[in-house]
């Protein structure tokens, strides 16, 4: 039976794919560049994100219902299909390793500083692999449930921080200058471009035609979360302090104190965020396994999943020997990396689709 994902679940996957890692780095990066105007950068990024989402969804809509790699092979031939599949497979694999390492570093930083990082990585990859073993449907359903949790947590966080929020810290507007605001927008655009996951998800949708709706809502939802966090970070701490923080999102909740008994509750926010992180890891691992399985026409998804998971554990441990390298990678190198696979590759595909459109309809006419 072909798994089916509802539109709501697609939105949930998109949001949970974009935001978890973005929330970690965005406030520091954007505020680092644009100071108290960071929210304008995020708004610009949101507009760009929606445009990317529309483009990707438009490409998806031309898919007549094949799985992504099969579609590429049907349309452009076996070689191109293989190249695209392999590129994306490797991209999602690398991203997966990066996310796992980021999450592991975060957990090690925050709480488990004495636990060997190998154990953390093994647990994370294990959980992600377990989720995928239940099929993309299970991942989609858990994504939707996790999204509801996030929707519950956001107002609570804002409410608890209400006393500390000082919107005057956002003033004056356009203080940083257009070039810095523009520069600050690049990183969020990079993260928002991860919406290209729709290319792989769309064939699994119950109603593939609603991919446009899912893409736009998902991209807006993610941008809204980024915006809330950025605005809160600036208005609570002021732009100067945030630059020095590794995880402003959690520091914000960390300062909450209700009465004398409810304090240091960031661990709850971290837990919910961790759930979204798990969804993200599952989605990326799924995409990687999916691409590699279909590129090489492997028979057993389970075996592929197992071997890729093992490989991911090793890669994650040895690629970044020092945490500093990962930090640099996330902030600087990720931008060309993300834009290459999420923007340029889909654009190439879209372009090729446009060019070969005539041929294909002729072929279709002949064959029918």
């Amino acid at each position, binding site marked *: 039976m072909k798994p089916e994902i509802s539109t709501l679940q697609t939105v949930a996957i998109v949001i949970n794919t974009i935001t978890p890692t973005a929330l970690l780095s965005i406030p520091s990066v954007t505020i680092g560049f644009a100071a108290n105007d960071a929210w304008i950068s995020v708004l610009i990024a949101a507009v760009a994100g929606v445009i990317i989402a529309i483009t990707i969804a438009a490409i998806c809509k031309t898919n007549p219902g094949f799985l992504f790699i099969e579609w590429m092979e049907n349309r452009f031939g076996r070689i191109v299909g293989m190249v695209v599949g392999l590129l994306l497979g490797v991209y999602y694999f690398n991203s997966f390793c990066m996310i796992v390492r980021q999450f592991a570093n975060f957990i090690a930083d925050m709480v488990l500083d004495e636990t060997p990082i190998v154990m953390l990585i093994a647990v994370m990859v294990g959980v992600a692999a377990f989720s995928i073993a239940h099929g993309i449907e299970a991942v989609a*359903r858990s994504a939707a449930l996790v999204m509801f949790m996030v929707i519950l947590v956001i107002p609570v966080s804002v409410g608890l921080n209400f006393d500390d929020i000082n919107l005057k810290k956002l003033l004056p507007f356009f203080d940083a200058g257009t070039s810095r605001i523009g520069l600050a927008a690049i990183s969020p655009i990079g993260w928002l471009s991860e919406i290209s996951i729709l290319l792989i998800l769309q064939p699994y949708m119950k109603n593939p035609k609603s991919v446009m709706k899912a893409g736009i809502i998902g991209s807006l939802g993610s941008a809204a979360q980024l915006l809330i966090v950025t605005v809160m970070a600036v208005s609570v701490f002021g732009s100067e302090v945030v630059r020095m923080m590794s995880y402003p999102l959690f520091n914000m909740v960390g300062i909450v104190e209700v009465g004398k008994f409810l304090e240091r509750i960031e*661990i709850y926010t971290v*837990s919910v965020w961790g*759930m979204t992180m798990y969804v993200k890891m599952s989605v990326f691992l799924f995409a990687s396994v999916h691409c590699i399985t279909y590129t090489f026409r492997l028979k057993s998804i389970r075996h592929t999943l197992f071997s890729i998971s093992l490989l991911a554990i090793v890669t994650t441990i040895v690629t970044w020997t020092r945490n500093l390298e990962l930090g640099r990678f996330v902030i600087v190198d990720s931008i060309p990396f993300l834009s290459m696979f999420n923007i340029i590759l889909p654009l190439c595909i879209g372009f090729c689709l446009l060019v070969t459109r005539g041929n294909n309809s002729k072929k279709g006419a002949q064959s029918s």
Partner: protein
Amino acid sequence: MFKKQTAGNDKQAGDDQKQHVEQLLVPDLEQNMERLERFLGGGADIVCRTLTHRSFPNQRYALFYIDGIVDGTAIGTMLLGLLEDANSQATEETDSLYTHLMERSIAVGKIFPATAVEEVGYAMLEGSSVILVDGSLRAIIIDTTGGESRSVEEPTSQTVVRGPKEGFTENLRTNTALVRRIIKSPKLRVDYKIVGRETRTNIAVIYLQGIAQDDVVKEVHRRIEQIEIDAILESGYIEEFIQDKAFTPFPLIQNTERPDTACASILEGQVVIMVSGTPFVLITPVTFVKFFQSSEDYYQRYDISTFLRLIRMTSFFISMLLPSLYIAITTFHQEMLPTSLLISLAAQREGVPFPALVEAFLMEITFEILREAGVRMPRIIGPAISIVGALVLGQAAVQAGLVSAAMVIVVSFTAIASFVIPAVNMGIAARLIRFVLMILAGSFGLFGIMSGLMVLLAHLCGLRSFGKPYLLPFSPLIVSNLKDTFIRVPWWAMRKRPIGMSSHQVPNQNRIGGGKRPDPDQEGA
């Protein structure tokens, strides 16, 4: 006993038939009697009574039954009738003794003919009586099923404050009658099956035609028919054979002792499976939230029902998570505790020689042993266990410094919380998961708990019960079904049957007519 069923028997016993050709009855009574006795293997409880009729002096006939599994009163009445008839002259010319008996002399409602020795034998094993007639190729099977069985009593495992006090019994016929008495609809279907080579256990599949989904009903039949086993002693046997996934701690099929719960499920489009010999009937397909609902929720006011359901859900999480949270917080995240509480906890744990994980395991295992002892021990020595459990293990262990008082509180609270869940099998799931989460919490703190919960979430999302997603109204989200989950809206607001469970045919979707909300002003106008 059941006409339909006996027809079904032959189909089921197909393997047996292949091995030896079905023995048909012959005109000779002696020979038939001998073959029937040989089939049943003799025995002191097989009763045979030969009679002669006044109008047919050359033909004898014999009444056979197995003592103890037949209804004594029915046999007495029937025998009296037969004797009276035997001594009276047949008024009209009847062509044969068989027809005469069949049509004029048996004082029991349900009789039917049979032609094979096996058929007769199996009918007797089910409690029917049989009349073999000399010179006839057919025997008369008389339904006299009965014998000693427990009467309808209050269910022991699912009690309510308000609501019917009837419970199912071990007798299948009584159980189907209890359902029939509640749902007096011609659409109620009761399909019988026989499973078990040796026990030949009767199974009834009950549903409302047009409201239950046809493919679900078909699937239930298919899965039951696929079972090949020598014996079915309880519905748990069936449950393990027909559930969708073998390896899961969560129950995928609900069971109940209460006829009202079974009927409510039937009315929502679920299928009920009854197994002879057990008061626990199975309900399928089922969703996760059903295990947190009690039939009483629908009998008392909706506000308190909603509150209680939320309490039950909280209890489920407490019984699953509390010990692991305690371990995680005291081992890894001490900063989360307010200072005064932290100091008091630290003071308590000062003399305890074990880490929190070991301490928790000690207490949890102790409690599990206590609980099992409570179930297994003879009722008379009950008080002993509570004294030993409460005083010796609880108080003395703390005083001896083996465990901290806080841990005793945590374990006791966990235990009490696990009894709140109305479905015992869901409570068991929480009980097992608790231990895994405790190990995770001991090794990775809250991160471990979170990872464990994520695994559970993915697992729950992947589960299905007869093809229906286990987390149904939540994921995939069906907004209109949320009215009857962890909350219960007033009856007049639940206008439709839950989507997804029942058939999609429009006329059956509506449960309540529109505008039934109580509104005295409008009525007056």
